[in-house]
C-alpha cells in the first residue's frame, strides 16, 4: 500500500544566479542569515511530520540545493535519518549545479547518506551554455561527474536541454555523444520552453531557435543515441540504464504520496494535492505552527475518485509501463497503437518515444 511509505521533496529556492530560461521559484544571492533561518524552518517541519510511515525516497531540488550550504543539507539528511524509518534502498537525490560543488562537498553529501546525484549539465557546448546564462562549462560538468564517482556516487543523473538556440542538429548530436562518454546512469531531457517573464523570453527575437523539423530531428537523435547506449526511455522526459530509473519520480507517476517541504513545494499527501506558496519569509513564519500551516492544505479539495482515476491514466501514460485503459476507450487505444504511438495489449496502453511527444493529445483522447 502506498500509505505504508511516503516520499519527501525539499525545495531549496536559492541560486547563485538565475538561468536565463528558468521560470521556477528560486532566488539569487540570498544571505547566509536567511539560509540559516530557512534551514531551521525545514528542520522544524521535519519534526512535525508523523513517524508512522517509512520514507522511500528523498529529493532535494531547487534552485540549487548546495547553495543552502552543504553542511545544512547534510544535517537535513541526518535529521530525516534520525526521525524516520527509511525503506531499504531508500533513494536520496541531491540536485547539483556543476559550478557549485567541489569534490569535498560531494564526499560530505555522500557520507551523510545521499546516494543519487542529479547534475545540471544542460549542454555539452560552452557557447550554448553561456548563451542561456549557465555559470559553468561542460568541462566543469564532466569534472563534477568524475568527482561524484570518486566520492562514491553510483547513481548519477544528468539534466539536458535540447532545441536550444544557435545550435545545429550536428552540434547537438556531437554534444550528446560527449555526454554519453561521461557514463552517467540516467538522463532527464527537456526541450527548451520559452517562459514569459524570463530573460531568454525577452531576448527571443535576437536568438535563432531551431524550427519544428530541427527540434524533431534532435528528439529522434536523443531516442536513437540513448537506445544505442543501453538506456530505456521509461518516462516522457527520462531515460535510464536498467535498474537506474528514478524511484522518486516514478512515485509521482504511480500516485504514491509525497510531501513537499519548503516554499513553493508541492505535495500529494493525506488525500489532497496542495502546495506552499512561493514566499520564503511566509514559509519560515508559518513553519513554527504546524506541518500544514505553510501550505494551502485546508483550502485544497480531497482528490475525488473520478479525479484519481483520471490522474491514474494521465500519469500512468507518462511512463513506459503505461496505464490500464477503461473499456470504453479500448477503440481509441487500439487506434493510437495502430498509428504507431505505442502498444495496446491486455487492456494496457504503453506509449513509445513517438507517443510521448504527443501524450497530451493521447491522454485527452483516452479520457475525454
Amino acid at each position, binding site marked *: 500500500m502506498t500509505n505504508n511509505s511516503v516520499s519527501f*521533496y525539499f*525545495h531549496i529556492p536559492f541560486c547563485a544566479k538565475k538561468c536565463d530560461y528558468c521560470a*521556477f521559484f528560486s532566488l539569487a544571492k540570498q544571505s547566509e542569515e536567511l539560509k540559516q533561518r530557512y534551514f531551521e524552518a525545514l528542520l522544524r517541519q521535519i519534526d512535525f511530520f508523523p513517524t508512522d510511515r517509512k520514507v522511500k525516497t528523498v*529529493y532535494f*531540488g531547487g534552485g540549487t540545493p548546495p547553495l543552502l550550504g552543504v553542511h545544512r543539507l547534510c544535517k537535513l539528511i541526518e535529521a530525516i535519518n534520525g526521525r524516520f524509518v527509511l525503506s531499504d534502498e531508500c533513494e536520496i537525490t541531491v540536485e547539483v549545479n556543476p559550478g557549485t560543488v567541489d569534490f569535498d562537498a560531494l564526499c560530505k553529501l555522500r557520507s551523510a547518506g545521499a546516494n543519487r546525484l542529479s547534475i545540471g549539465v544542460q549542454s555539452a557546448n560552452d557557447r550554448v551554455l553561456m548563451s542561456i546564462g549557465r555559470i559553468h562549462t561542460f568541462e566543469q560538468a564532466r569534472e563534477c561527474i568524475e568527482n561524484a564517482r570518486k566520492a562514491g556516487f553510483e547513481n548519477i543523473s544528468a539534466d539536458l536541454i535540447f532545441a536550444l538556440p544557435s545550435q545545429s542538429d550536428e552540434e547537438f548530436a556531437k554534444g550528446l555523444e560527449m555526454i554519453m562518454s561521461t557514463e552517467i546512469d540516467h538522463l532527464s531531457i*527537456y*526541450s527548451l*520552453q520559452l517562459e514569459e517573464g524570463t530573460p531568454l523570453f525577452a531576448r527571443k527575437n535576437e536568438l535563432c531557435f531551431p524550427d*519544428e523539423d530541427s*527540434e*524533431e530531428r534532435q528528439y529522434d537523435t536523443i531516442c536513437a543515441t540513448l537506445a544505442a547506449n543501453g538506456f530505456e526511455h521509461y518516462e*516522457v*522526459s527520462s531515460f535510464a540504464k536498467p535498474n537506474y530509473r528514478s524511484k522518486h519520480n516514478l512515485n*509521482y507517476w504511480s500516485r504514491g504520496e*509525497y510531501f*513537499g517541504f519548503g516554499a513553493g*513545494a*508541492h*505535495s*500529494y499527501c493525506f488525500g489532497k*494535492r496542495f*502546495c506552499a506558496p512561493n514566499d520564503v519569509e511566509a514559509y519560515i513564519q508559518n513553519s513554527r505552527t504546524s506541518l500544514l500551516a505553510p501550505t494551502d492544505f485546508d483550502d485544497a479539495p480531497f482528490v475525488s475518485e473520478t479525479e484519481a482515476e*483520471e*490522474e491514474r491514466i*494521465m*500519469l500512468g501514460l*507518462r511512463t513506459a509501463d503505461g496505464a490500464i485503459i477503461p473499456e470504453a476507450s479500448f477503440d481509441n487505444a487500439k*487506434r*493510437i497503437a495502430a*498509428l504507431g*504511438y505505442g502498444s495496446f495489449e491486455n487492456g494496457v496502453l504503453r506509449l513509445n518515444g513517438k507517443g*510521448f*511527444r*504527443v*501524450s*497530451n*493529445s*493521447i*491522454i*485527452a*483522447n483516452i*479520457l*475525454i
Partner: protein
Amino acid sequence: MAEIEKIRNFSIIAHIDHGKSTLADRLLEYTGAVDKRELDEQMLDNMELERERGITIKARAVRFNYKADDGNEYALNLIDTPGHVDFGYEVSRSLAACEGAVLIVDSTQGIQAQTLANAYLAVDHDLEILPVINKIDLPSADPEMAKREIEDIIGIPAEDAPCISAKMGIGIKDVLERIVKDIPAPKGDKSKPLEALIFDSYYDPYKGVVVYIRVKNGSVSVGDRVRMMHTGAEFEIVELGTLSTFALDKKEKLEAGEVGYFTASIKNIADTDVGDTVTLVDNPCEKPLPGFKKSQPMVYAGIYPADGSKYGDLKDALDKLRLNDSSFTYELETSVALGFGFRCGFLGLLHMEIIEERLEREFMLDLITTAPSVIYEIHKTNGETVYIDNPTNYPDPATIETACEPFVKATVITPTEYVGTIMQLCNDRRGEYVDMKYIDTNRAELHYLLPLNEIIYDFFDSLKSKSKGYASLDYEFKDYRPSKLSKLDILLNGDVVDALSFIVHSDRAYPRARRICEKLKDNIPRQLFEIPVQAAIGGKIIARETVKAMRKDVLAKCYGGDITRKKKLLEKQKEGKKRMRTLGTVEVPQEAFMAVLKYDDE
C-alpha cells in the same frame, strides 16, 4: 373616440442612422406623451438588439395627441417601420396603414439607398410625403443639397421642408404642424362592413397574440366575431383599444380611420399574417384589402447546437422566437456531421444574424450555423420542378434539365470615386449591369441584377469596405434565371461532411473550393494523424489541402511533482472538446464551420 378628420396616421421613413428613432422620441416628448425621464433613449426600438444595431426590426405603433396652432386637438398614430431591406414587405404593410410618411434625410449625407427605396414604396402607396431635413446642427450639414436631391431624385417639392435637429430638439413643432396640415385625414366609412389591415403582431404570454390593425372601413367592438380573410381563422374579440406610449389603452370600439390593437385568445401567431384583412364573420366585406403576400423566407441555413446535447434547448428557444416572428421558419433537420438541428428560413441575411444573435444572447446557446443557401429552382428531366434550400438535397446532376437561381434587383448608391471598385465587385459577383445615374456630381446610383447567392455571403461587408463605409445597398427579388450550378462537397479524411456542402456557380467552384480547403486546413487543429481536406464535385476531387499530423504536444516537466499544470491542461482540453464535433475520427472545432461561411476574395 377621435373624429376621423382629427386623426393622422403616418410613418417615419429614413436610411439607417438618419435619425428616425430620435425624431420619434422628440415627437412623443414634445406632445407630452412621455416625459424626458421616462424616455429610455429610443423607446420605439424596444428590443435590446435593435438598439445596438440602431435599427428597428419589427414595426411598433404609438398614438399621441397634439394640440395644433389651429386650436384643434389631433390624434396622431405613428407607425414605425423596420429599416432594412430584409423587411421590405413589412414596411409596405406598415405604409399601407398610413396616409402619409415623414421622409427624413440626413443633411450631412443626402439621399441614400434606403431613403430612395422607402420613398418609392411610400409613393407606390399613394402616401403624402413630408420631407424633413435632419441634423442641421452638424458643421457638415448642407440642407440645400439635401432639398435639391429630394426634388431631383425623388421628384417631390422640398423647398419648404422643415430643417431640424432631432437630437437637439430643433424644429420639432414645425414637423408636428406640417403633419397635421399636409398629411390628409384618413378616409373611410364606419357604416360599411369591417375592413381592417393587420400591420404587426406580437405574442403576449397572458393575452395571446396582440394584433395591430388599421381600420379602413366599418368598426369593430369587444365581443365581435372576426375572420382573418386569408388564413380563414375566426376569433372572438376579447380586448381592443389604441396604443399609448407604454401600454395598451383599452377601448370598447375601434372605427374607420383608427389605428389600434385587439386580442382574441389567439395562440398561434401564424394565424395573424401581416397584411391580412380582418372582417366581421356576420357582416363580411366583399374582398380583402389588396397587397397581401405570404412572407417567404429567401435564405436558409442549418442551425445546430455546438454542444449536441443542447438540442432540446435550441428547440425551446426557436419555439419562443417564432411566437413573435412568423416570417422565420424552422424544421427539424439531421446532419450526419452535426446531429440534430434545424433548417431555418430567413427573410434575408440580417434577419438570420438577428435570430442567431438572439439565440446566443437571450438563450445562451452556442451555435454552429451552416453556410446560408438561397432556394434553387430545379427543373428535372422528368418534368418535375423542385425547390432546393439545402445542398444535401441537391438532385443528381444527371436528372437535372435546368437549374435556376434567384436574382435580385440591387440598387447601390455610392460616392462617385468608388464607382469603379463597386462595379468590379458586382462583376466579380456575377452581376449584370443595368444602368447608372448620377445623383449629383458626387454620387451615383448603380443598378445591377445580381444572383442572391452572391449577396448572401459577404457582399454587404465587401461593399462597405470597398467604399470606406459610404455605399449603401437595397435589393428586391427579381426572378429565377437558368444558371450553371454545381454541388460542392467537402471531404475530411475521405468522408463527405454533409454540413459543409454547398451549391456554387460552376465558374466559381475552383477558387471557392481551394479557399475553403485552405480555411479548413487553418482552422482544424493538428491531430494524431494526417488529415486530407478535399473538395469534390460529383466524384471528382478539385482541391486538396492537408492538416499535418501533430508533432509535439507534451508537458515535459512536472517538476517536483507539480501536476497542476497538467490537470489544468486536461480541463482546458475538456472545455475545448465541447466545442468540437467529431466527424468520423476527425475533430472539427466550431471555428472551422464558421470560417468557411466567410469567403473573402483575398
